[in-house]
């Protein structure tokens, strides 16, 4: 019992520290990309800017809704199934992958539900469109995950990582790697998760909610980004496998931040995509066929290796 509590404490501490670093880094990198200075401490509150800027929503008036509690609980519970590092994992079962995906889909659906009784009619139609687009983007992502699962013939994260001790999955699945990256990049773009600079007009899911619910939305936004990067890391980049002398924990952190910076810069290189048909065309005509092709290739490979043991 104590061991579990200790693990939960470690998970929350890790998340908290990384949340702080990521929001600070995000602000700084975006500012430097636009040739601005970014946040620079003015007076006492300067040191803890990401902390204070989110904490201030507690001080505002707010209405609390059920959706916020559900989203908050879900976005914490995702880490029970997805191990960040080899000693931080709570539930060990053979169906971790499926559980994680279900929770992820639920978070996004609840986020969209929680804003759909907004008084801005514009946002309702906009968020309905976004469900359509995100679903179109999720499908290729699922096929990619499935092909990794087939490759390693397991649904458990620990086994997936352990089987990458020689070569990372990126070597076996280059097509899946690219499709997965594009898919998560576009999802982050569509959900406007990196939205610190609020100077936009487009209907935005993060715009909704006030007071604490805004805080929850922001928190869950960052959690989704963390989840995507950790999943990406686990599936293709070898997770906590150590490289020469570097320890596993440090490798995870290193890969996490490299991928994060890549995603931040890529996210800013694309203009806002709100054209529904364009996204759906892109996903159904390019990403989905590629991922299906990748899956078929993997199945053929699997059959050749395991049934006929040719490879």
């Amino acid at each position, binding site marked *: 019992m104590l061991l579990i509590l200790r693990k939960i404490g470690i998970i929350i501490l890790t998340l908290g520290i990384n949340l702080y670093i990521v929001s600070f880094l995000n602000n700084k990198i*975006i500012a430097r990309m636009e040739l601005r200075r970014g946040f620079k401490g003015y007076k006492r509150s300067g040191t803890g800017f990401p902390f204070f800027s989110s904490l201030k929503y507690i001080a505002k008036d707010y209405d609390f809704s059920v959706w916020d509690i559900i989203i908050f609980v879900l976005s914490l519970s995702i880490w029970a199934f997805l191990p960040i590092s080899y000693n931080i994992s709570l539930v060990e079962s053979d169906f971790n992958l499926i559980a994680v995906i279900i929770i992820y889909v639920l978070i996004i659906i609840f986020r969209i539900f929680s804003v759909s009784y907004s008084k801005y009619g514009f946002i309702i139609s906009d968020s309905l469109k976004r469900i359509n687009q995100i679903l179109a983007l999720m499908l290729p992502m699922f096929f990619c995950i499935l092909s990794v699962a087939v490759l390693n013939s397991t649904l458990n994260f620990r086994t997936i990582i352990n089987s990458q001790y020689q070569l990372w999955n990126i070597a076996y699945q280059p097509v899946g790697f690219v499709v997965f990256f594009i898919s998560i990049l576009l999802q982050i773009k569509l959900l406007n998760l990196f939205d610190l600079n609020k100077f936009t*007009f487009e209907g935005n899911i993060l715009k909704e909610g006030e007071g604490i619910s805004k805080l929850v939305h922001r928190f869950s936004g960052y959690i989704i980004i963390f989840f995507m990067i950790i999943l990406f890391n686990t599936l293709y980049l070898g997770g906590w496998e150590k490289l020469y002398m570097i320890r596993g924990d440090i490798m995870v952190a290193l890969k996490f931040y490299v991928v994060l910076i890549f995603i931040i810069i890529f996210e800013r290189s*694309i203009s806002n995509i709100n054209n*529904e048909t364009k996204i759906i065309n892109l996903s159904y005509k390019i990403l989905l066929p590629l991922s299906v092709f990748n899956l078929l290739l993997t199945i053929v490979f699997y059959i050749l290796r395991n049934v006929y043991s040719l490879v």
Partner: protein
Amino acid sequence: MTNEELKFNIEKHPINHAEDIEKEIDILFGNKIGAIYNFGKELLFDVSPDNLSEVLNILRNNPDLEFNVLAYIKKKPEKNLLLIGLLSYDKGITINIRVKNIIAERRIDYKSIIDSVKKYFKNAQYYSDRQYLKDTNRDAVILSQLPETLDTFDIYLSFEDNIINQAYLSNEISMFNQDILFKNSDINKIIAKINILSYKAAVFPELCFCLGIENLLSLKIPKRATYIRMLLCELFRISSHLSFIANTSLIIGNQNALNYTLTEKEKILNIIEIITGSRVIPNFIRIGGVKKDIDDSIIKMILKSLPGIFKNIRKIEDLFSSDIVILGKLKEIAYLNIKDARSFGLTGPNLRASGFRYDLRKDAGYLLYKDFSFTIPLGRYGDNLDRVIIRFKEIYQALKIINEIAKILPIGPVAKMMDHSAIVFEESPIISSVECPDGIFKLYIEIKPGSEIEIIPIGPVSNNMHACEQSLEGCNFDNLLTTISSFCIESPEMY
């Protein structure tokens, strides 16, 4: 060029037609119209409400006259006055009809007059009561929001499956009464106040007002002063277009383009501040010249900074014209062909984007634009992309003009010495017009005894809004914002 083409071009070229028309008017209209005033390419008729219908009939249906476009209608209920503008693109002449009752007590019946105009000009319905704005059976209303082009009006929409059936823009929230603004002001005070009428390019109302008064007094302006005026005009044109580009990139969601544009705009505003002393409100043009002279060091500084600005704006254009996502939002959306664009009475870049060449800088020849060689950029299809790209091209042309002016700025006085208080104005209306960044900006000025001045500004806002409404029909809902921003409807309207 073959002989026939040459002949055609000569016939089409608008030279001195205003005088010809003025001569013919007596034969055509008889005593149906009162006084006639001539201001270069602008004519002003006095017509009583009873004769208006017949006059319009003659103007519309006579094949020689070709006044087939309604440019504007301005209602002035408290002054008992109505202004109607008819435009002939081919001849480059505007006929302004002033409807006024001879008997002071009798009020003009605006509704019946606009109904009678509607018979001859289809787009007059824009100026009458629009019932749709009051109905409750519309699908969506978008209230005015943050970015600059979208904040002066509410949008009323009815749509089906993402395709817009009807769109109405209502600028009731941004209209304001300018009578209070100009209350108890003489000429000098008005110059300091009038620049608020077009706040993105504040030099143009000043210039328009001063040109009008100078026309009335038939003053001759020193060459150096005229060149400095043109320099300022082009600088403000660039600054206005840059803020348009900043807006569009904000709506498209390209933060990089927004930031680069704001940086470049800062440089232009810097030059403006060095010359005039203020970043936005110049208060620089005076009757008979300009307020103060420019040093040689400033001109050297301008010449030095121009290549850098040109290079950076090229970079921004490259960002716009090679990104698939941006092109997807702009290309082949909201077409406006030449015929439609002309029927709304459009002017400025929005008209030129459709491919029709009409620019007061060359056609009317105000200031000394004829001394400089520059081309008027034209679009081809009149879609959103053309409307954006044409503004980039106009910026390059403006930079070229500035470069030329800075090189050949003549030496001489910058203002005519005169005592403003000693001038006695004869009581007569003036109409003067300039090519503003968004279209033609017109001022109707009436000087009354006791030097009280009455001004009616006539901007390009309502024409742009009407054209925007029409081109939105059949457009996808996703492209609503980019389409509206591409028409550049920004400054509020006066009534």
